[in-house]
C-alpha cells in the first residue's frame, strides 16, 4: 500500500488504494481493458490487509461472488468495463432487491459491443441507472481525476454501507489510465454497515425513517433468508402486491430521500455565472479549461460538475435554470445526461448539448466556442 503523502500513480491504482483504505476485504474480478490494473493492484495489496482476491471465470461470477461475500460480512467490490458491465446486470438487480452493499467500478470504454475497446466513453450512464430489469434507484458517482479515483472510491464504499445498496463508480478509460498526483491522506473517514442489534432482526424492513434496515451476516445465527424474490421484511417469499410495493418503494425512497446527503457537486465560478457548463468525469476536464478561458475573455461562465450523477441533482439543476441563460451539457456519448437536464429545467433556460462519441475527449476549444456563442 502507498504511504500517506504525494505519489504519481495510475487512476486505477488510486481506486484500488482507496478501496482497501475504505475497508474493502473482498474483491472478485475478470480481466478487461481498461479496468484490469485495479485487479492487479488489489491482487498484490489486498492479501496484506487480510483480504481475499479472486479472479473468477467471468464477470457474472465476479459480481455473484461479491454479493455472496457481502452477505458473509465483507465490504466487497468488483471492477469491469462495458462488456463485463452488461454481463453483470442481472445480479446487479439481485443486489438491489436484496439490498446488498457493494461497490462496482465501471471503467467505461467506447461501445456498443467491443467498440473501441481501449478508448474512454461515458455511454453507460443510463445502463448504470436502468440496466437491470425492474424498478430500483441507483447511486452512481463519477471521478474526474486520479485523486478522485481514490477519494470517490472511499465515498462509494461509505455510501454503499450507509444505504445498504450497490454503488456504481462510473470512471472511464481516460481517468483509469492517466498518471497524476495522488495525495494519500493519513486517515480516511470510513462508514461501517449497520449491524443487527437483536436476533429478531428484519433485514428487509425497518421502521427507521431512513428506510435502511440492519444487515446481519451469514454464520451469526440469524437464519437469514436472502432471496431475489419479492419478500416480507423477514425475508420469506411473498408475491402479494402489498409486499412488492412496500419493497420497491422503500428501495427507491431510501436513495431519493437521501439525495441531499448523496448529492456532491463541484462548482467553479458558478456564483455569478450566466452560462453553465455542466459536465462530469473526463469530459469535465476540457470543460473547466474552457470555463477558465471564457472567464479570461470576460464571459461569465461557470462549471457545474456533479460528482454524484445518480440520483440526479434535481433541485440543484432546477435552481441553475433560474440563474443562467444557458446550460451546455458536455459528455462523451450521443447526448444522454442532457435529457435529464432538459427534463429538470422544463424550458426555463436554454439547454445545449455538446456530446461527442469516438473515444476522444471533447476539446476545450470546442467547449469554449459553444460557450462564447451562448454568452452573446
Amino acid at each position, binding site marked *: 500500500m502507498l504511504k500517506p503523502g504525494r505519489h504519481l500513480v495510475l487512476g486505477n491504482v488510486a481506486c484500488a488504494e482507496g478501496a482497501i483504505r475504505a475497508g474493502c476485504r473482498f474483491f472478485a474480478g475478470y480481466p478487461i481493458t481498461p479496468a484490469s490494473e485495479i485487479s492487479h493492484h488489489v491482487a498484490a495489496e489486498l492479501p496484506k490487509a487480510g483480504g481475499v482476491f479472486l479472479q473468477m471465470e467471468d464477470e457474472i*461470477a465476479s459480481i455473484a461472488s461479491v*454479493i455472496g461475500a457481502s452477505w*458473509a460480512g465483507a465490504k466487497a467490490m468488483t471492477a469491469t468495463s462495458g462488456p463485463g458491465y452488461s454481463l453483470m446486470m442481472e445480479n446487479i438487480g439481485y443486489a438491489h432487491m436484496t439490498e446488498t452493499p457493494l461497490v462496482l467500478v465501471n471503467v467505461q470504454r467506447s461501445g456498443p459491443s467491443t467498440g473501441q475497446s481501449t478508448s474512454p466513453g461515458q455511454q453507460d450512464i443510463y445502463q448504470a441507472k436502468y440496466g437491470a430489469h425492474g424498478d430500483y434507484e441507483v447511486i452512481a458517482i463519477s471521478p474526474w481525476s486520479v485523486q478522485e479515483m481514490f477519494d470517490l472510491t472511499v465515498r462509494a464504499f461509505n455510501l454503499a454501507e450507509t444505504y445498504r445498496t450497490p454503488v456504481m463508480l462510473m470512471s472511464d478509460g481516460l481517468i483509469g489510465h492517466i498518471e497524476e498526483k495522488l495525495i494519500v491522506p493519513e486517515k480516511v473517514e470510513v462508514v461501517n454497515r449497520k449491524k443487527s442489534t437483536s436476533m429478531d432482526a428484519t433485514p428487509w424492513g425497518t421502521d427507521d425513517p431512513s428506510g435502511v434496515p440492519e444487515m446481519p451476516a451469514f*454464520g451469526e445465527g440469524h437464519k437469514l*433468508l*436472502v432471496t431475489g424474490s419479492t419478500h416480507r421484511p423477514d425475508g420469506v417469499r411473498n408475491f402479494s402486491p402489498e409486499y412488492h410495493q412496500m419493497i420497491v418503494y422503500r428501495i427507491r425512497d431510501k436513495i431519493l430521500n437521501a439525495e441531499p446527503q448523496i448529492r456532491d457537486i463541484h462548482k467553479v465560478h458558478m456564483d455569478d455565472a450566466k452560462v453553465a457548463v455542466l459536465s462530469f468525469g473526463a469530459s469535465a476536464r476540457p470543460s473547466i479549461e474552457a470555463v477558465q478561458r471564457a472567464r479570461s475573455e470576460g464571459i461569465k461562465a461557470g462549471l457545474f460538475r456533479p460528482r454524484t450523477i445518480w440520483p440526479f441533482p434535481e433541485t440543484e439543476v432546477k435552481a441553475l435554470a433560474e440563474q443562467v441563460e444557458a446550460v451546455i451539457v458536455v459528455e462523451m456519448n450521443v447526448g444522454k445526461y442532457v435529457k435529464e437536464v432538459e427534463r429538470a429545467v422544463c424550458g426555463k433556460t436554454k439547454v445545449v448539448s455538446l456530446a461527442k462519441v469516438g473515444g476522444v475527449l471533447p476539446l476545450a476549444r470546442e467547449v469554449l466556442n459553444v460557450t462564447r456563442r451562448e454568452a452573446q
Partner: protein
Amino acid sequence: MKNLFYYRDKYVRSQPSAFCPGCGGGIILNCFLRAIDDLGLDLDKILAVSGIGCTAWIPSPNFNGDTLHTTHGRAIAFATGAKAYNPDLTTVVFTGDGDGAGIGGNHLIHAARRNIDLKVILVNNMSYAMTGGQIAPTTLHGETTVTSPYGNPEFPFDITQLVKAAGASYVAKWSTYHVLELTRSIKEALQHKGFSFIEVLSQCPTQQRRIFNLRGTLQSLPPRILDMFGESTVIRGRPDKGDYVYAVPKEDVSETLKQVESLGISARVVDHIGFGQVVRVDEEPESVKAKLEALSSVTYVADHKESKIEMGLFEKKSRPEFTDSLKEIIKKARGE
C-alpha cells in the same frame, strides 16, 4: 440413544411446501437434514445456497438456517464468495440440472477445478421442470418434451464424469430411490475437505410423465418412477444380483408380455429409463434368450446390465483446497 423428534420441527421453517405432490425434493431435503443431524453440525455455521428452479426451493425457504436464494445458474458463484470470505461456513449448494449444468455449467466446472470446499447437490430430473418441462442438458436423446415434440435431437451430459474430470475431489451419484446411500454420501461430502459433488437422479411426476410417456393417475407416478430408478440403475462395486433379461418390445409392450407368457415363462412389465416400458424375464439368460428372440413382437433381448445408469462413489481423493490456498497467500503477502 436419541430422543424422538420430528426433523421437520427442528430443521424446517414452518412453511407450506412448494413442491408438487410426489416431488423428489422432499426426499433430498430429508436426506440432507438426516445427514447434518447425524453429524451434529452447528446449524448456525451452515449456509445453504441455491439458484433458480425447483431444486432451489429445497433449502429455500425450508432449511431453517442461513439460506441464499440467488439468480439462475449462479448459486455456485455466490457460494464461492461467501465461502472464500468466511471459510468457517459449511456451504452447501442445491442446484438443478438446468441450473447447474445448463446455464451455470461454467461455474460448476470452475469451482470443481479450484477444489473449493463447497458441497454441491445437483438434483437431476432430466428437464427444466419449473418452467414447464423443456429439454435440459440432461434430457436423453429422442425423448419427448414441450421443446422437443419430435424427440430430443441432443445428447445429454454425463454430469458426474464432467465434474470428476474438472477436478472435484469427492464425486458421487445416487437417486431418490437410494435414500440410505444418498444420506451416507451427503455425510461423507460434509466431512470431505474440497469440492464435493453429488448428482441425485430425482423423480418429477409433473414433467417426467411426458418425458417417459407414463400413463396412469398422478398419484401412481411417484412410486412408479422410483421403481424405474431402481430398475435402471446399477451400483458400482456391488455384486450383481440375479440373472434376468429384458425383452424389448417392437411396439405394444402388452403384446410382448402376452407372447412371452404364452411360452410358459413368467414375466412382468417394468418401466426402464433406457428402454421405456419393457418386459422383464427373471430367468437364466441362456435358457430363455433364444426363445424370446424368436418372438415376433420382440426387437431384441437385452442383457440385464445394458443401458443402466451407474450409481455410487466416483471419486474421493485429497488435493489442496482453495480456501486453504487463499490463507497461504495472505500469509505470504504479509511475510509471515
